[in-house]
């Protein structure tokens, strides 16, 4: 595959945009005109050429720019990478899974050679070549999860499984939708999901946890989640709320198309082999309203989903600009079927 990587930013002047191809493969998350939380988990199997789930990890045109943004966030706040000591096996499991998948799926960009435990990793887009000893932390410039997490788009949380529960015991998190790693690290499934409205009452969390505790090696799963963001900003963390929070007030009927973005998370879950832990990936995709309405069916459907959105979900997701967005989208909705 011949991928070109865009030069763009996710902060300050916000030059991020999607090419028409990227718009086409955008993971539009709504399969009907209304939305409520559900256990929308399915096997993470490979899909059509060009789609975002063609491969285990999706490397797209934003790869280099996103990794650069990640490095800035980590430099400003080292607490975006945190890992408890008992997760070292899980770190190596994660590094192996990512390096093997990426080098198999994108041989032009990534290369992994192994002589016993002596591994050489080549990441051409980021200009990285590292020789290291698999399993020996001192042979890498930083801990394995941070090392590889800086080279894969999205956020990566490692879970330890014990006492019939999952614990978020290590992660690299630089593009989260307003939750804090420093607060959540070490928490259990019920604890970190505590702030989410409604889902618990309708049994979503209990069923999803039971399912995940049975997750099998070699059979990863995925789901989509979504929210909205003002400006194409990756780092919408509580720590930096003062930087991005006020942007929500900057939305006007004139700038909705540019400023308001739908943010879709492709969440993947893998059982890890040596640690018997789990890897949870949150890979975000951003699309501006201007880009989104180039697909008339998406425009109609998003208009209807937002109109009918449960107020507690809108509040939780922080969609204070929802009504302006609905007004703006209404001109794309003629009331005909969105199928």
């Amino acid at each position, binding site marked *: 595959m011949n991928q070109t990587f865009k030069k763009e930013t996710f902060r300050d002047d916000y030059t991020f945009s999607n090419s028409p191809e990227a718009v086409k493969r955008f993971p539009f998350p709504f399969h009907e005109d209304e939305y409520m939380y*559900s256990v929308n988990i399915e096997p993470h199997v490979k899909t059509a050429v060009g789609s975002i789930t063609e491969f285990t990890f999706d490397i797209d045109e934003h790869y280099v720019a996103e990794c650069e943004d990640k490095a800035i966030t980590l430099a400003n706040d080292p607490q975006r990478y945190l890992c408890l000591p008992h997760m070292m096996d899980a770190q190596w499991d994660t590094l192996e899974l990512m390096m093997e998948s990426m080098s198999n799926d994108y041989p032009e960009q990534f290369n992994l050679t192994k002589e016993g435990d002596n591994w050489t990793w080549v990441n051409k887009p980021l200009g990285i070549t590292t020789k290291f000893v698999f399993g020996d932390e001192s042979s890498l410039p930083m801990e394995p999860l941070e090392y590889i997490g800086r080279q894969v788009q999205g956020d990566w949380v490692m879970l330890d499984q014990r006492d019939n529960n999952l614990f978020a015991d290590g992660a690299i998190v630089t593009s989260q939708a307003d939750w804090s790693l420093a607060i959540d690290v070490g928490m259990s499934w019920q604890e970190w999901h505590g702030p989410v409205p409604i889902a618990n009452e309708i049994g979503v969390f209990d069923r999803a946890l039971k399912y995940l505790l049975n997750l099998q*090696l070699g059979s990863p799963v995925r789901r989509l989640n979504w929210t909205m963001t003002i400006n194409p900003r990756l780092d919408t963390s509580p720590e930096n709320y003062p930087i991005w929070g006020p942007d929500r007030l900057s939305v006007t009927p004139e700038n909705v198309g540019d400023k308001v973005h739908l943010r879709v998370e492709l969440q993947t879950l893998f059982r890890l082999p040596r640690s018997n832990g789990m890897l949870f990936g949150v890979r975000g995709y951003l699309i501006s309203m201007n880009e989104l309405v180039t697909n008339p069916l998406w425009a109609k459907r998003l208009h209807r989903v937002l109109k009918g959105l449960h107020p507690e979900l809108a509040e939780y997701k922080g969609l204070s600009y929802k009504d302006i967005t609905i007004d703006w989208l209404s001109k794309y909705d003629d009331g005909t079927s969105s199928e």
Partner: protein
Amino acid sequence: MSHLNVKVAAIEQVTEHVKHFTFISENGEKLPAFSGGSHVVLALNINGRIHRNPYSLMSSPLNTEHYGVSVRKQEMSRGGSVFMHEQIKVGSRIQITYPVNLFSISKLSHKNILIAGGIGITPFLSQIVDLNRMDTEYELHYAYRSPEHGAFRQQIEDMCGERSHFYVASDGQILDFYALLSKQPLGTHVYVCGPEPMVNAMIAAARDLGWPEKHIHNEQFTAPQAGESFKVKLALSNIELEVPSEMSMLEAIEEAGVDAPYLCRGGACGRCELDVVSCDGSIVHHDNYLTNAEKTGGKKIMPCVSRAKCQQIVVNL
């Protein structure tokens, strides 16, 4: 569930009743890495019927060129152990699941007490490799009937040194659970695998001594999903089909060329729910989706995991 295709590379008669099997992957590649205490489920084709037997992986997690399992011949049962002993030869091909671990060492324990009875030693052999590698404190207590049955004693002495303790019943050596457990420091976890009476006695002793439930572990295997075969009638498509024992109802419907809805394939999402028109037996619910009232009501089934024990079940599809 994903599967691995393996070939038997070696068979060793370890004791009178125990054989050890070495598997290599059919394509010559390394087998997947795994964690100590994992098991695999073998799919054995015995006279055209698939039997699924779980066995602990006892080879080292550090070397996945091969997997090793040991099988004790259970004369009384009609299951797979006799087949493994009598029919499986070097070169036989077997389909196995990816490793599953329902008996893993707690990573936050301060000390681990491993208790094995007879063939129940197998899951500990892979755990010991992990414990040694992670430099975690542990003791292994291995009880067996008589010297001829102490199959893996030498190997264990080599791996564990002074951390291993042996109890040979024929020599009058008895493992006293109360004595062992009452002298352990706070934060110790105990793991047991062996004959049922022994497992139960150990658990009872630990509870009696006030050990927290979370610190008491016994080996568990994935329950084979398969059950009896049964017939399904799809009322709307007017198709009749049979669900063989080794297939889920959803898979059998798909095999018949009917597009059935699904998402998680694991009984959690609710997408595959079907209305039951009639069933001349009972539904065996395995899902986490339906409420208990819906389950007893018998009007709904989640075909990705659930089955029926009946001649025929009719569903609205």
